[in-house]
């Protein structure tokens, strides 16, 4: 990144943290702010200068004035609570618990244009919220949902009752929402009426319907390609597939002994797994199981996009559009040098840019510079 671009970004972030941008500011504060460790990355030409961390604040004011004067590019705090959050060695901090976090990031889910990725991740978010509140029994008011400022959402559960949980307990939750570790033997028992049993049942039914609908040759070669399934076996299975579908509905336990169904439902078998994943919320496992993670501070700006990390009340999620609601900068024109042709929707308009110099609204300019797609080209 060129020095002029860096300076431009630093200046815009300065304006944000110092209240010069209408409606902006970093007024959000995590539970027990003083027990958190903070970490920051800065706008600097030295790409390798690392994170400044092991920092603690004694009040919201202290944090705010740090943000105002230091103007970090990225702001993180620990999901963990510590007795000595500012201690330089992790071992000296004295861990006292940590929020449970779910991270939904498009990186793990789809590769697509930015707006499409964001829309897709939001679907995951709704699935996640449904499972957390409907099945696992967490109250909606206990969920803190944040747009990450990048490609996804973070859901925090800052509950006292689960703060002390270790990795093993946290893994149970993340595996639950993400459909990891399903056991055929457990899933094939009635009643398949709710939760994972229902989803599993639906996924299997879809898969059997798909197979039944394939041309005979294709179905045969697919089935006999499954591990441990001979061609004769596959042919026999195909002949009775209608009956198998009925059994799945009426008496799933009878299918426990069915080798072919078992092979279809194997966790490594792609089409069925895809059916499971589409019904799961693909949260990133290491984020949830890590009890000492740093997470983005809601209200801060994401230095890789210039967008705001936005806390969103559950009931406003439907209407939330990150490409409008997480954009803090305005329509003032800036001139940028794009590295390649691109098209990007932001603030309700779609901008089609060609490689080279373009005049764009500041909001888009900041976004492109932060992403490293463009450099400031001087003049406005």
């Amino acid at each position, binding site marked *: 990144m060129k020095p002029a671009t860096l300076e431009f970004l630093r200046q815009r972030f300065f304006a944000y943290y110092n209240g010069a941008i209408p409606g902006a500011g970093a007024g959000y504060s995590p539970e027990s702010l003083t027990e958190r460790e903070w970490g920051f990355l800065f706008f600097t030409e030295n790409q390798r200068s690392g994170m400044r961390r092991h920092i603690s604040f004694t009040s919201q004011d202290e944090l705010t004035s740090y943000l105002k004067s230091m103007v970090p590019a990225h702001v993180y705090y620990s999901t963990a609570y510590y007795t000595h959050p500012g201690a330089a060695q992790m071992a000296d901090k004295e861990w006292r618990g940590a929020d449970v976090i779910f991270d939904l990031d498009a990186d793990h889910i789809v590769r697509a244009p930015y707006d499409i990725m964001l829309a897709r991740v939001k679907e995951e978010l709704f699935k996640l919220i449904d499972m957390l509140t409907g099945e696992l029994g967490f109250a909606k008011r206990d969920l803190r949902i944040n747009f990450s400022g990048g490609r996804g959402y973070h859901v925090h559960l800052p509950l006292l009752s689960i703060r002390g949980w270790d990795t093993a307990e946290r893994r149970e939750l993340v595996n639950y929402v993400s459909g990891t*570790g399903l056991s055929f033997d457990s899933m094939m028992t009635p009643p398949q009426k*709710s939760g994972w*049993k229902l989803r599993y049942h639906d996924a299997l039914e879809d898969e059997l319907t798909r197979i039944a609908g394939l041309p005979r040759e294709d179905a045969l070669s697919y089935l006999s390609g499954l591990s441990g399934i001979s061609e004769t076996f596959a042919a026999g299975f195909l002949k009775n597939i209608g009956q198998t579908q009925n059994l799945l509905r009426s008496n799933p336990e009878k299918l426990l002994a069915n080798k072919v169904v078992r092979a279809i439902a194997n966790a490594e078998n792609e089409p069925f797994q895809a059916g499971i994943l589409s019904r799961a919320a693909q949260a990133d496992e290491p984020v949830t199981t890590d009890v000492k993670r740093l997470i983005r501070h809601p209200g801060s700006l994401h230095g890789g996009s210039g967008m705001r990390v936005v806390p969103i009340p559950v009931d406003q999620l439907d209407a939330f559009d990150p490409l409008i609601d997480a954009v803090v900068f305005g329509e003032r024109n800036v001139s940028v040098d794009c590295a390649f042709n691109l098209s990007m929707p932001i603030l309700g308009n779609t901008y089609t840019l060609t490689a080279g110099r373009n005049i764009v609204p500041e909001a888009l300019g900041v976004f492109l510079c932060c992403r490293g797609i463009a450099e400031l080209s001087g003049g406005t």
Partner: protein
Amino acid sequence: MRTSVEKRDLAHYPFLPEAQGLLASRGIKVAGLSGSKIGCSYLDRAAERVITALDGKTVYPESEDDVVSDIITYVLARVLASAAKDKRTMDRLCKMEAARVYAYFHAEENELLKKRVCEELGLELGDGSLPVIRYVELASRVRDAKWRLINRDVESGFVSVSSDEMDVLIAERIRAILSSGLPLDIPESIAKEFLPWSDKILSAVQERTLVEFGAIDESAYPPCIQALIAAAAAGVNLTHSGRFSMTAFLHNVGMNAEQVAGIFARSPDYNPDMTNYQVDHILTNEYTTPSCATMLTHGVCVNKDRLCESVSHPLNYYRSKKKMLEKMRIKEEALAKKAETAEKENPEVTSPGP
């Protein structure tokens, strides 16, 4: 059906405050126990209780009628295991105690008592379901796919659990609770007072792991033992505890009486009769090497090195060092082999300069 908590019940659930109350009402205190004959017998029994656990037994034979003894040995067993500072010992003890408590709990007909135990252990006996948070806390440590939350019937914050499954979770909970308190914080004075008993436990641990020692490796002896051997060979008269420690150690790592006596034979004023008598006495009584703490008290812990910082028993030192040396040897051999082949293929690389 009985509905009160009686004295003999307390032996089954010695962690109940009522059990501790019984000890207090008899004026029994842990500190100073070794000063009385009965106290020493409690300590002996407590050490046995730990050793029973070390042997992987799940049932500790309780006395027929001495409730106080059963309770105090439970308490002392935990104290001694903590004083011994050996993780495996504590794990084994918890496993045994948990299995024991669970067996009584499972067969318990006294509803009031059952309720008391649940209260004390923070268990609630559900009606076929548990809240998700509770379930996760109980089941996350139990292996097997069927226990994973994702494989359960989960609805509106509750997980269905059959009564058989509940039993498994309760047993696991008991184990977790019994082990969460360990190691106990043992005051220096008590650790010192109980040293003979905690040593007995450590020795038992050592004996049970002796199998791992394999062939004797003199270069892996800890500094204390090396110093004793050197002194013996130089004809220095060893103190009683010095001779005792060395003999026990050498025996523990696998030497027989003859070999041990042979070490003393290196001394210029060697007296075979005397030596054989002493060695035999130590060996026939199956004494085991004292812990580092005891060695220190008796002035035989000398020339401590870095490895000493991380061990609490000379036999532990020996085991670690032996492993390290073996690893090093394998590495060296591999390197030597490499150098050899390199020399063959590319002589100028390894040939010495002019």
